[in-house]
């Protein structure tokens, strides 16, 4: 009987948990991803979401010629490696962290301002029959004035 009474409570907790998953990404971004920006000033913007292995996300942003940038892409420990590529407006790949042992950060500057696209992909553990892993992925930008 007592167990039965607990069912709606458990279910309500489940609802609350579903809603808090993304909320946890803020703490993750703050604790794990922002420190990766090092000496670069975090711009204050927040780009984070829960991704499942194999899932992809895209980010569009203008980068300015006056600045030096560091992008930091971090994935939860539960996830496999997170790949990120940076593309120009003509879809040319300018950088892929796959070539740098899935590095979490990339430092760059531009001789002229550009709109770039970041494609972030969570790799797959390739374990058929198992529940796919999911966790927070955050994309943070730091900048400093070009020397």
């Amino acid at each position, binding site marked *: *009987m007592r167990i*039965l009474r607990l*069912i*709606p409570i458990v*279910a309500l907790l*489940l*609802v609350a948990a*579903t*809603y808090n998953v*993304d*909320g946890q*990404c*803020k703490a993750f*971004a*703050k604790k794990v991803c922002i420190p990766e920006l090092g000496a670069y*000033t*975090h*711009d*204050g*913007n*927040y*780009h*984070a*979401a829960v*991704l499942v292995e194999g*899932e*992809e*996300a*895209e*980010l*569009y*942003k*203008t980068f*300015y010629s*006056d*600045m*030096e940038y560091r992008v930091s892409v971090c994935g939860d420990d539960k996830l496999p490696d997170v790949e990120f590529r940076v593309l*120009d*407006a*003509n*879809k*040319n790949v*300018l*950088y892929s962290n796959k070539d740098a042992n899935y590095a979490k950060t*990339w*430092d*760059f*500057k*531009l*001789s*002229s*301002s*550009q*709109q770039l696209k970041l*494609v972030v992909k969570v790799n797959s553990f390739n374990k058929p029959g198992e529940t796919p892993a999911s966790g927070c992925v955050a*994309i943070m*930008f730091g*900048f400093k*004035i*070009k020397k």
Partner: protein
Amino acid sequence: MNKKYGIYSKILIVVLMVTSLLAGCKSGGTKATREAVTVSVPKDNIAVVEDIKQAEKIFNALPSPLESAMLIKSAGARFDASLLNPVGNGNSYVTNKSMALNLGIYTCDLSFASLYEQTQLIIDYMNAAKKMADGLGILKAVEQSQIDKLEENINNSEVIMEIVSETFMNSNSYLSDNGQPAIAAMVLVGGWFEGLYISTQLVDMKDFNGNKLVGRIIDQKLSIDILLNLLEGSKGNPAVDDLIVQVKKLKLIFDKISITTSKVRPEYDKTSNVTVLKSEVKTDMTPAVFKELSTTVSEIRKTFVNN
């Protein structure tokens, strides 16, 4: 017993279904963004549309208020306090739309004051931003401990920038994580417009050609579609729909500015461990187009700050 078990099972099934639906609605926000993006992308750019359709989550990142202020300073512009939105106006912002837009505006003003070490203004604008965040129900956006830290480090620009960045992230992460993308978008729009407004007002027409600040204003053309895509994600919200009309008006003027860029060539510098994205760019904006742009930005910004 069995009857009661049946009732509880039914409750559980209903609650789980609601959970799934709610969760679906949440990720549906991304889907909505996708559909909205499809509408706003030019017809001739089918490949881009297809690209966007494939991605599960799209982030449209505008320059943050801190980055906008930094761009103004790096262009060598002077500080002019009269261009900021007076903190006294804060009392008249009572709708979510006006508070969201002015949270972005006050954060940009705060960033601008911070970079030019305007100590009293830094405190005033931090409090103004806090008032907007509180009004929007954003929990812990600006905490008293941060204001205290700000006062203690009022002459340390590095710490101040860190606090400004942190408080802004507290606001936009709260809004994003709590299913308020329309409000989050409006905060970013407010900040972007304020940066553009301050920049356009600081341009000296006698020194128009080769002016670095004019170059940064031209660069904002690169962000106008990102801005529209961001807003289109919350299309249907009356406040956002009004903003879309205003931004489209501004886009018509940006369309008169030409930017031609050569192929981007990444060159890795081993010494600094920095990749340089090299390209050549040609831009063209006549003084007449600049004046039109400046007037329109000023008119739109007036609708934000005068409420």
